[in-house]
């Protein structure tokens, strides 16, 4: 009797067991076209199209001839690919009497960007380091002013800066422009570096001090080698910012130093006859090429650095 009951219980159990065993196992099957995937990838692809459309139009247009542009639609791929607009934009487009296109501006931009980026990053990183690790009385006040300064519209500052540069005797020189870029790069870069260095373990800094390293030794030997991501962020920000700058380039320099953006503006706005959209687009792409390259090459580090330097207040 007893035996029987337990036996039947066992049977039931077994039955249940087989039922369960027959049930689902392994990971839940997910078709590639699940609702979630459709929503996620669908949205992302749509968004990607929105972001890519202008680039596509730029490229396509720059490869068309003017007649084709006039009749065709802007999204249509070129019937006949021509590189003439590129050649023209780079080497032949005229502003006034100068018909050497963007090429001159390109080298000027390089001459402006390289020292400006290097100097502004050097100054700001040392500064951020001092603020994060060697705090002194009043540092916070100056820093707060600096940060507020980041929000002042540039137009407000142009006049005073002209005066300052004039008094320093560097108005209109490359030096002057580098100083201007350093000044305006300072707030955001200092903030980034300060946050980054403050995020590094303080004990590391203490250990170095016990080891007898001073201000500069710690900066050069300890902090710098650990700061690649944030330097990449700073570099991308500055390269794009300075390369793309128009206002300072035009206000604080003379024409022989005009950067590429000014040249671009000149080409685009020097309409001789009809607007040559294809040349304009080629010129536009050419101008954007350097920051884009920098960004594509080091974009991955950019996100990492942003996370390290910007997210914590």
């Amino acid at each position: 009797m007893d035996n029987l009951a337990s036996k039947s219980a066992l049977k039931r159990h077994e039955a249940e067991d087989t039922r369960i065993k027959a049930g689902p196992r392994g990971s839940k099957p997910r078709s590639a076209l699940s609702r979630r995937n459709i929503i996620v990838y669908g949205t992302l692809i749509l968004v990607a199209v929105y972001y890519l459309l202008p680039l596509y139009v730029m490229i396509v247009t720059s490869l068309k001839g003017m007649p084709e542009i006039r009749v065709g639609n802007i999204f249509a791929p070129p019937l006949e690919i021509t590189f003439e607009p590129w050649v023209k934009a780079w080497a032949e487009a005229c502003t006034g009497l100068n018909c050497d296109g963007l090429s001159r501006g390109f080298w000027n931009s390089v001459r402006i960007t390289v020292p400006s980026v290097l100097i502004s990053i050097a100054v700001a990183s040392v500064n951020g380091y001092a603020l994060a690790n060697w705090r002194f009385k009043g540092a916070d006040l100056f820093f707060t002013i600096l940060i507020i300064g980041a929000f002042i519209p540039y137009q407000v500052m142009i006049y005073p800066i002209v005066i300052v540069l004039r008094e320093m005797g560097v108005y209109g020189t490359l030096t002057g422009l580098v100083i201007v870029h350093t000044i305006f790069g300072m707030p955001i870069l200092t903030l980034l570096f300060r946050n980054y260095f403050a995020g590094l373990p303080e004990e590391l800094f203490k250990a170095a001090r016990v080891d007898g390293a001073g201000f500069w030794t710690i900066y050069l030997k300890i902090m710098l080698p650990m700061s690649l991501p944030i330097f990449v962020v700073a570099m991308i920000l500055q390269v794009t910012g300075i390369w793309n700058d128009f206002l300072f380039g035009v206000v604080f320099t003379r024409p022989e130093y005009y950067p590429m953006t000014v040249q671009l503006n000149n080409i685009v706005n020097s309409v001789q006859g009809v607007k040559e959209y294809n040349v304009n687009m080629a010129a536009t792409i050419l101008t954007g090429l350097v920051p884009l390259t920098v960004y594509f090459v080091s974009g991955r580090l950019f996100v990492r650095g942003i996370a390290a330097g910007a997210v914590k207040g």
Partner: protein
Amino acid sequence: MTSVSVRDLSLSFGAVTVLDKLNLDIDHGEFLVLLGSSGCGKSTLLNCIAGLLDVTDGQIIIHDRNVTWEEPKDRGIGMVFQSYALYPQMSVEKNLSFGLQVARVPQAEIDKRVKRAAEILQIQPLLKRKPSELSGGQRQRVAIGRALVRDVDVFLFDEPLSNLDAKLRSELRVEIKRLHQSLKNTMIYVTHDQIEALTLADRIAVMKSGVIQQLADPMTIYNAPENLFVAGFIGSPSMNFFRGEVEAKEGRSFVRVDGTAFDVTAYPASVPLKPGQKVVLGVRPEHVKVDEARTDEPAHQATVDIEEPMGADNLLWLTLAGQPMSVRIAGKRRYPPGSSVRLSFDMGVASIFDAASENRL
């Protein structure tokens, strides 16, 4: 009757297989501890049970229901995390009730359950506070409360105490134990702290690289470890190991290590020891008597290297048979470094492992 069954569970992250055909049955009301060092796959297993990770293969059965493909919320589980994972902007009360509100439990019922959980955990005065205004221990209590209000039969804990300091840890440990005794529900508890495992568990599953090495009650694990890994992993300070060879002489068995021979006749071997067999002799620090052996008993002479008084007892570090070993003695007896001591071993509670297979003999 089993409460949670894990059948042939496999899980890979891409090319890395973390769990491979793992089986585990947990009884109703059992307190099971998953113990293992960092990275051995404890959390992974727990997350699979909770439904937070998609298994690669195998089944998970909770209360005779195959839940392998169910959402976590439908599995009848509650979970407590190491980092508390409280919703920081919500008050404690809101933290407790949020899940229920989302599940559209009637407000009266919510209030009742929150009240009960708060009472059990003694967090009534904290209900209006934000998590940031709580201490670590209080936070963890709230986190437990959040699992409690779900009114489920299976609780999963992922190293709930390891962010707390030693003192709080031992306090909360007792509370969790008390909770289990009063709720009597199934608990699966992940930790790498062996004290927690020993004190809390009904059964301990010791894991290494995704494989369960031994599954047994704490005393068995402690006193009769299945293999060298378990023996070394459990116990602080570790079990003392002596690698040597079995010798038989005059009807007695010995393990010879360097020049020293340990009389292991009293050892209750499950397989007879074969002379010449390479073995590892393991003796726990508290199973060594110091200066207590009768003169006729076998004893070994050694010198104290270091003494670590720990309040309630005293830890001595010495060298025997060319190997460092530790000995735990109770109370206030002090042996400053350099003291000479006579050690005798309680072989009845020692362990002997085969040196090759590392399994208990």
